[in-house]
């Protein structure tokens, strides 16, 4: 099986927003809508201060609350572990937006459709997905790959960096963070 996942090194993220704009372009999103948002954290007091940017997007949970609350089956998990929305079934009820603990879903203000990060599954040529956010990340803060392949870069990086989901015990998220 293939089970796609991502690792984000916040210790490499300078908060440059390249991933947001690349994602918008790749997915033809309007300029006001983004699948990626950022939480900025500042701790300490002058002159000993630590600042961190945390990019957030769909965590592609294995127990996705958005999928279980969807009344029409529009939200689903595909056979590669990617959480997707079938727009032909979506009625725009926004249950999924409310259910997502990561606030990762958005509504396209033009169509009313609810959407979110899909790991760029509609990729260039039908082969392995290559998320635009990973491809464009200036500092190499993002790694994408198959969790079921223990030799994949993402599997190995999760182990070597002891990467963990952003919030313990919330869902079985498949975006791992190094902080």
């Amino acid at each position: 099986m293939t089970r796609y996942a991502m690792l984000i090194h916040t210790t490499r993220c300078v908060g440059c927003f390249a991933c947001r704009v690349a994602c918008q372009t790749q997915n033809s999103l309007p300029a006001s809508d983004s699948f990626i948002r950022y939480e900025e954290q500042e701790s300490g007091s002058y002159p000993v201060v630590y600042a961190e940017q945390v990019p957030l997007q769909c965590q592609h949970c294995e127990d996705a609350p958005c999928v279980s609350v969807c009344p029409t089956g529009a939200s689903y998990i595909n056979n590669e572990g990617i959480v997707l929305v079938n727009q032909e079934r979506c009625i725009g009820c926004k249950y999924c937006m409310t259910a997502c603990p990561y606030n990762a879903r958005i509504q396209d203000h033009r169509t009313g459709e609810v959407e979110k990060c899909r790991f760029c599954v509609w990729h260039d040529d039908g082969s392995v997905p290559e998320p635009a956010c990973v491809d464009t990340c200036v500092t190499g803060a993002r790694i994408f790959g198959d969790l079921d392949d223990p030799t994949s870069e993402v599997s190995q990086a999760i182990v070597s960096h002891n990467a963990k989901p952003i919030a313990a015990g919330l869902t079985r998220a498949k975006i791992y963070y190094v902080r």
Partner: protein
Amino acid sequence: MTSRAHAKEGTGYVTVATSCNACTNKCGVIAYVKDGRLWKLKGNAAHPYSKGTVCARGHGYAQILYSADRLTEPLKRNRDGSYSAISWENAYREIGERVRAILAKDGPEALAIVEDPRPNGKYYSKRFINALGSNNYYTHNATCNLSLSSGYQATFGGTNFSADIASSKLVVFIGRSYGDGMRPSSAATLARAAESGVKIVLVDPRLNNTGIFASQWLPVNPGTDLALLLAIANVLVAEGLYDKTFVAEQTTGFDEWAVELAKYPPEWAEGITGIPADTMTALARELGAAGPKGVIEQGWRGAFGCQYRNSFNTARAIAAINALLGNWNRKGGALITHTPKAGALDAGKFPTPVQGPQKAGVTEYPLQTQDNGTNLIVVKQGIEGKMKGVFFYNSNAVKAYANPRDWKDALAKMELTVCIDVQMSETAHQCDYVLPECSYLERDELPEFLGGKQGCVAGRFKAVEKVHPETRASDVIYAELAEACGVGEYFRFSCEELARAQLESVSVSYDELREKGVVNLGEPFAYDEPPTWKTPSGKFEFVSQKIAATEGLKLYTPLITWVEPKVSPGADTFRLIGGKQSIHSHTMTTSIESLMNITREYALERAWINAARAAELGIADGDTIEVRNELFTATVRARVTERLNPTALWIPTHYGGSSPELRQGFGVGIPHMEYVPFDIEPDVGSAMTHEALVTIRKVSA
């Protein structure tokens, strides 16, 4: 177009290797085009600056292609300040007549051109003004890195170097932030270096967005980096922590400078910089122990490119510390790499214009690197009535290069002002004629030669057909303007013919460059060869022989000494400092919808204020504050933070747009340069953009 591009079977798109235009880096990118429309950009892995990635500016600025705010036809200003369309032919004829009148009455020295250089501009803008008999070619550098390049020239003869971060042990940044003023490959190198244990020290009044990689932040009082550097040099010399062989063999003036340095112990610098003496002593010892793998990074605009009335000496002090540490051309140290150039071309086809009188400003500011000049002389001589005509290309000088009111006064007195741009910038608004260029994705440009550890040449090739049929490429505009001014004989070749000739001169195939976007040139950089010092002495100069031989200097001396900043904040004032954000390129990208949406969503236009100072003034995060000085007053929201030196107010320098045609950026944030008094760094020519004080008060919660 498709004949040049490479269609991928079954994918519905073609790709074109070209270069980004969102900032001066001009990174190599691959444009993906579907049905004749640009879809997206990806980084070109072969380009030394992008290494396969694209930053937010690069992705965002590509949207200029389809922006509703682009210039689509030539415009002429009416008496009431409004603009009407004019045909290209009539615009050229009228501009040509005015140029000839100025030449006849005031001579070529009354004409100038100002640009933010790009591949075509570097060649055509210079050639155009030279063809008119004038040497008055200026770039934005007086508001960027003129003090830095001039200071470096006075020590080692070159205008820049690069810290070998990947192989270093300790890298000290003076005000530069790879996470804000971004070059993708530099940020990537720094990320890897930090992860592999290279110690990174940031000297910056603001904990900038490179902070994630830093082991130590030294929040220096702005304008006093020079004192910190002199204190480090003091310790290195006093404790014998310098490379005595290098100093003996490769340098001159050491003994004299060592005497001067005795005045600057860390205890002296503590009160000036706000950094504890022990911290500076410890850093100096760490550098001494790490040299030649302990290095002061080269900077760019950062803290001493153009900001203070001591920036020139800050640059010299950085070069001198790297010399004390024996860093030059050593692995992990400070590298002076070679930049390849095109060879000689057929002088019959590409004739060189006759050399005109000396560039204005060189006599008054003799320590400047002269290639790019100081554009501030155009303002000064415009107000004095001496400069009569100016062309702007790819330049928002009026908003960004000096106080806008002084620019406006200067331009209002001139007899001819012309702006070539893709959008109706604040500068275009002050010009008699506005000529619309097609965007960088709709035109070919000349190849760009790049230095570094591996020299190369990069190309820019048209990715899509023109969106607006009346726009024209800069090489065509310059050639047609030249014909109208009676000097067309210098432009009777196409951009492609010139590109092919330049590439042939270095044995690179035009078709190979078009295919790959980047072709390497020459041998890789070799460590441990001492640089060729292009100084009067032929050595690294701790005491400048060029300065000793220059008469009439007002400020700087052959020795690298402490120089006070022009202004200093008191108990009730703040020094207004500014800097870049990673999503914007000067003021150019504030017209781009996706980038300005980020600004709005994350309130990035806010002014940063130190939390303790904010508390004293009753200001909470998000409050609206009034920022005032004798020149300008405006309101903006406050970002209350622990990440800023208490003597400073920091604002991003992109905002405060005042051109109504550029709807995205109009009225968002406050304009930095409105607060900066028009002034010029003595002897050097920079704009001293941080020599301004402001007061702050809370307006509303």
